[in-house]
C-alpha cells in the first residue's frame, strides 16, 4: 500500500495589499511514497517543502487537489494517530518540562495511560534527554528542542513520520544521532518522509528523493540509480595547451587549466578519444569512469528547462507569479 499519495495538491496564496495578486506556493504536486521507504524531499529554502508538509498535516488548506495518507483521506482524523510530525524549528510550551510535554502529547495521541510514563522515559532516553527531562522547556537550547521535537514525533509509535529539516540546529554529533535514529526507524519498518536542503544527509539515508524548486516538483529518483557508478561517461585528463578539435567533435565537455585538459565524454567514445590523443601526441594522465552525484542531479533539476521557462514567462504575464 502506498503510504502517501499526493494527487495534484496545490496551494495558492493571495498577496499584496488588496490580496489580489496570486502566489503559487505549491504547483499541482503529484507524488507517491511507498510504505517502508525513506523519502527525502530536497530543495532550497522557500521551495515549497514546508508548505507541502503543512498541507499534509492539515495546518493549511489546499486550493486544489487532495492526498491520501495510509489509505485514508488526509482530512480523516484517524490518520493523525498513525503519523508523527516534527516541524521546522519547533517551539513548545515554555513552562512545561520535557517530561510533562511528552506526557501531555501522549495523552493527546491516545497513548494508553498504563504504559505512558514508561514510554515517555524510553523516548527521552532515545533522544538523549534523560538528564534534562525535568527542566522547563524555556531553558532548552535549540538542539535540545530539536530532540524534544523528535521524541514527540515518534512517541506514539506512528507508522509514518514527517520531519521538516530534522538536522537543523544540531551539532555534528547530534546530526549523527538523528541519522542513526532515522536508520532505526527504517529498520522498524516505518515510513519516513523528511525535507532537507543538505544533500549528504539525503544521500546517506534515503531510498528515493524528490527535488522541489519554486513550488514545483522537478524530479524524483532513487538514490541508488542517481548515484550509480556508471552514468555512461568517462573522464580523461591529459597534458595539452588547448582542447583538440577531434575531441570536441566526439561530444566532449572539456576544461583547460594550466597545461592540463580535463574532458568528459560518453564511454562509447573511449577508444576514439584515446585515438585522438595518440594521433596528436598528447600525454594521458588518467582515465576514470564518471560517478554522477546527487549534487549534479540536484543542480540540474534546479535549472529551469526551456519549456519551464516559457511556462514561467506566461504565468508572469498573467500575473500568476512565484
Amino acid at each position, binding site marked *: 500500500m502506498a503510504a502517501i499519495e499526493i494527487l495534484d495538491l496545490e496551494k495558492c496564496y493571495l498577496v499584496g495589499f488588496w490580496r489580489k495578486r496570486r502566489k503559487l506556493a505549491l504547483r499541482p504536486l503529484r507524488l507517491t511514497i511507498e510504505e517502508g521507504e525513506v523519502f527525502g524531499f530536497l530543495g532550497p529554502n522557500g521551495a515549497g517543502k514546508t508548505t507541502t508538509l503543512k498541507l499534509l498535516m492539515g495546518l493549511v*488548506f489546499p486550493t486544489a487537489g487532495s492526498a491520501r495518507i495510509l489509505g485514508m483521506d488526509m482530512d480523516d482524523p484517524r490518520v493523525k494517530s498513525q503519523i508523527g510530525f516534527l516541524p521546522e524549528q519547533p517551539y513548545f510550551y515554555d*513552562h512545561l518540562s520535557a517530561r510533562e510535554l511528552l506526557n501531555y*502529547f501522549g495523552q493527546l495521541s491516545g497513548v494508553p495511560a498504563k504504559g505512558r510514563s514508561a514510554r515517555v522515559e524510553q523516548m527521552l532516553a532515545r533522544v538523549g534527554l534523560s538528564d534534562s527531562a525535568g527542566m522547563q522547556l524555556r531553558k532548552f537550547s535549540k538542539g535540545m528542542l530539536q530532540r524534544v521535537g523528535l521524541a514527540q514525533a515518534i512517541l506514539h509509535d506512528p507508522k509514518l513520520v514527517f520531519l521538516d529539516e530534522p538536522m537543523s540546529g544540531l551539532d555534528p554529533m547530534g546530526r549523527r544521532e538523528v541519522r542513526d535514529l532515522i536508520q532505526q526507524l527504517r529498520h522498524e519498518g516505518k515510513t519516513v518522509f523528511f525535507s532537507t536542503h543538505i544533500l549528504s544527509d539525503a544521500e546517506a539515508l534515503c531510498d528515493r528523493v524528490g527535488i522541489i524548486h519554486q513550488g514545483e516538483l522537478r524530479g524524483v529518483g532513487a538514490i541508488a540509480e542517481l548515484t550509480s557508478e556508471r552514468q555512461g561517461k568517462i573522464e580523461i585528463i591529459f597534458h595539452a595547451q588547448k582542447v583538440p578539435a577531434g575531441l570536441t567533435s566526439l561530444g566532449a565537455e572539456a576544461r583547460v587549466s594550466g597545461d592540463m585538459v580535463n574532458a568528459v565524454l560518453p564511454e562509447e567514445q573511449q577508444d576514439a578519444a584515446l585515438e585522438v590523443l595518440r594521433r596528436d601526441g598528447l600525454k594521458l594522465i588518467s582515465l576514470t569512469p564518471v560517478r554522477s552525484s546527487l549534487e549534479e542531479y540536484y543542480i540540474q533539476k534546479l535549472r529551469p528547462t526551456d519549456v519551464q521557462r516559457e511556462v514561467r514567462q506566461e504565468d508572469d504575464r498573467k500575473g500568476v507569479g512565484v
Partner: protein
Amino acid sequence: MNSGGMNSRIGYIAFNTFREAVRDRVLYNLIAFALLLSGAAILVGEISIDIERLVVVNLGLTAVSLFGVVIAIFIGIGLVSKEIDKRTLYTVLSRPVRRWEFVVGKFFGLTGTLVVNTFLMAIGVFLALLYVAHKFEKMDVWVLVALYFIVLQFLIVCALALFFSSFSTPLMSAVFSFALFVIGSLAEDLRGFARITHGVGGWVATAIAYLVPNFSALNVISQVAHGDPVPGRLILYNTVYALLYSAMAISGAVLIFQRRNLK
C-alpha cells in the same frame, strides 16, 4: 466517533492550559493583590469609622473584577494567539486533536484558571472585610453573589479573547477584547441611547447595543457595598445570558478557526 477520546482530549487540553497559566504570571498578581487589599483596608481604617466596609467591598470587588479582566485577556491572548503565532500549535494539531476540541479545551482551561484566581482573591476580600468589620454580617452573602457575577463576566471575556485570537494577532486581540469590555460596561446606557435615537443611526445603535456583551448588569458592586440584596431572577437571567453569550463567542471562534490557514 470517538466521543470518549473527545472528552478526554478536551480535558487534557484544559488541564494543560490551566497548568501553563498557573506557572506563568498568575501567582504573582495574587500576592500583589493581597498586599494591595490589606494596605487599603488598613488605610481606610484610619480615615473614617462608618464607611470602611463600603470601601473594602467597593475597592476589593472592583480590583477583583478589573485585575481579573486584565488577566483573562492577557492570558487568554497569550495562550491562544501566541500559541498560533509561535507554532506551538503545529505539534498539537498533528495529533488526533480536532480544531474545535482545541478551542473548547482552551476555553475551559482559561475559565478554570480564572475561577481559581477569583476564589483566591475573594479570600483576600473577605479577610480584609473581617479585619475592618471584625465579624461577618448577613449582608455579606450578597458579596458572594457579586463575586459570582464577576466570574460570569470572566466567562464572557475569556470567550471573547478566544474569539478574537482565532483570527487576529495577539496585540489586536487584546485591544479588541479590552475595547469590548469597556463598551460592554456601558451596554445599558448604549441601549438607552439607541432607544432615543431615530432613523438609521438608531437601528445601527440598537444592533450594536444588543450584540455588545452586557457587563453592566453583571456589575452589582455598588449595590452590594450598600448591603442591598440582588434579586434571584437577575441571578438566573444573568447566568443564562453569560452561558449563552459565551457559547455564541466560542462557536464563532470554532467556525473561524476551522478554516484558518496557520502560517
